[in-house]
């Protein structure tokens, strides 16, 4: 079993730092120059490499001692290209929201790198970090709790200008906020209203307007439409797609609704227990999934249309999601996988194009972290 590992083609392994065009040891000014330089459409704007976030588990009150760690994100790598939408899916607890916080530099990474235009933002501070934060904004899930109820809409959308006054001089802010309201389809005259005077969909538009205020390049969206009614959800998704084209935005779209993710994403990554299980184009992941976890996840999505329901196979997973404080050895999914063999317990599968598909002209030839990767269509009626 062990010597199988030696046969893994190194070139196929997870992208590593060597393929990132790193801005080495930049001075503050060099870093800021790199950060503010434009990126061509289709070029990587964000490159995540071996990113790890462990939350320590401690015991004792006076003399805290670490007794373990919750491995929320445990070595993931992916690229986000300029102008694209990368969807990240997975069950709750898979680490997808922690990834969002790490990219926003709201959490400090335990190890690994996040290259934004070649600069590792996990090592930045001060002026350079501020410049990065301006360019990476976030839209949150719950439009009911993410807006301060005591602030007017104008203050909420204009608040980022307080931190980055260079974007809009004081005298210009009101006009800029009204412009933003118009951009997201709200009446600019609503500028003095309070959040409670708006519906859920309108509040999410306010959240989006605030995210756009600083002309960012990347927007990290954490479940942006899951709290909204179906008809309103469609309006907001359409708005986000329109804004992406208009402002040339790159989205990292985190959600548990696989249908919405398919609709909005160019590429999709599937996370399980702090690891990336599979990543590829929307067609590769939805129509040609090769990882058993992706297949199970997709097969479990209820489909409204009775005609498409007939003949669909449902894969019911057994067992619980293991604790991220004590993940299984080898492949983390093996405890719930119907394909698991001895090898899966001893050898961790790398996220790479499976050997059997390499060099083949098939949609199955995309990165999948499984020793027994195999195509299976679970979405379409048999």
């Amino acid at each position, binding site marked *: 079993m062990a010597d199988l590992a030696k046969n893994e083609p190194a070139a196929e392994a997870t992208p590593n730092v060597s393929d990132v065009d790193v801005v080495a040891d930049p001075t503050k000014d060099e870093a800021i120059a790199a950060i503010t330089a434009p990126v061509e459409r289709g070029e990587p704007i964000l490159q995540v490499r071996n990113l790890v976030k462990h939350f320590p588990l401690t015991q004792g009150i006076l003399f805290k001692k670490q007794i373990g760690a919750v491995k929320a994100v445990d070595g993931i790598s992916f690229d986000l290209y300029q102008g694209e939408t990368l969807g990240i899916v997975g069950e709750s607890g898979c680490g997808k929201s922690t990834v969002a916080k790490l990219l926003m530099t709201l959490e400090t990474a335990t190890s690994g790198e996040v290259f934004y235009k070649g600069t590792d933002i996990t090592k930045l501070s001060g002026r350079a970090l501020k410049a990065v934060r301006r360019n990476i904004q976030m839209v949150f899930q719950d439009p009911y709790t993410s807006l301060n109820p005591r602030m007017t809409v104008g203050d909420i959308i204009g608040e980022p200008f307080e931190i980055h006054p260079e974007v809009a001089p004081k005298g210009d802010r009101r006009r800029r906020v009204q412009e933003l309201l118009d951009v997201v389809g709200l009446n600019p005259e609503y500028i003095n209203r309070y959040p409670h005077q708006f519906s*859920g969909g309108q509040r999410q538009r306010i959240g989006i307007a605030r995210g756009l205020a600083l002309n960012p390049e990347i927007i990290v969206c954490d479940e942006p439409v899951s709290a909204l009614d*179906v*008809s309103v959800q*469609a309006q907001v998704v359409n708005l986000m797609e329109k804004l992406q084209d208009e402002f040339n935005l790159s989205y990292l779209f985190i959600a548990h609704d696989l249908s919405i993710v*398919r*609709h909005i994403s160019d590429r999709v990554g599937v996370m399980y227990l702090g690891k990336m299980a599979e990543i590829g184009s929307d067609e590769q992941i939805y129509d040609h999934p090769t990882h058993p976890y992706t297949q199970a996840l*997709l097969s479990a*999505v209820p489909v409204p249309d009775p005609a498409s329901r007939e003949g669909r196979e449902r894969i019911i997973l057994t067992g*619980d999601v293991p604790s991220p404080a004590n993940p299984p050895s080898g492949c983390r999914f093996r405890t719930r996988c119907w394909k698991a063999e001895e090898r899966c317990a001893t050898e961790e599968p790398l996220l790479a194009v499976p050997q059997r598909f390499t060099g083949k002209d098939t949609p199955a030839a995309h990165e999948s972290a499984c020793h027994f990767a195999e195509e299976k269509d679970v979405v379409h009626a048999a």
Partner: protein
Amino acid sequence: MTTTAKTATVPGPRAAADYDGHLLEVRDLHVEFHTRDGVAKAVNGVNYTVDAGETLAVLGESGSGKSVTAQAIMGILDMPPGRIPQGEVLFRGQDMLTMGKEERRKIRGQKIAMIFQDALSSLNPVLSVGYQLGEMFRVHQGLSKKEAKAKAIELMERVKIPAAKERVNDYPHQFSGGMRMGLILITHDLGVVADVADKIAVMYAGRIVETAPVHELYARPAHPYTRGLLDSIPRLDQKGQELYAIKGLPPNLTRIPSGCAFNPRCPMAQDICRTEVPTLAPVTEQDGTDLPGRGSACHFWKETIHG
């Protein structure tokens, strides 16, 4: 998005031998709330029936009146500010709105299970899901803790929660939105409805605008609102173009539009829709053949279902 009234498949102590009508019948139910902005008409003449063992899903967006209807039936409506000016909720022919608290409490939970899906907050975050579901059986059927837990697992399995046995001790936050929805069945997910319900009533602005057996509703909606809702869901099996979105917002319940409440958002609206309230009328095939269980409150249901 949905309330599912599941009539008790849990056998009650009294059999239905002496009663052969509907198990649950809601007749012309009205609910209003007094607010600073005036009277909000949350429910405006709702009628439906549920037979033994049947699952009815009530589908509607926020403010459609689905949750208020459910609260009125279960006798958990806050009064005031709520008020029921008109209507009956008959359980085995007995009006639950006029019966005593004790009597109603026995029926509720034991004979009718209501699963609220949007009430993420209706579960206590510090108690396990199994405990909270089991509470229903402990209080109403006097079951032991162990028996109640088994019943809770059964209920979780019935609403298709995978690995119910293992998950019964989990806390609400450990359930994904989708699963939590499955439990307390009011969902944004029309797919879930298709899985568990027998028939659907679609509500809009306090009225039922369409009723149909589950599969027929998805295949051939007979109300423009239902059709709009179905068209606005992205599909898992194909990459769509721009999503269809129903224009505008649901109405303010203190100022419901005249005529059909959906008319300002409806692509098919004509003059008659602004003046005349459409009643829930039976829907038939083009040749007049009866379509059992189907009804639509649209002046143009024929054009909607038959193109």
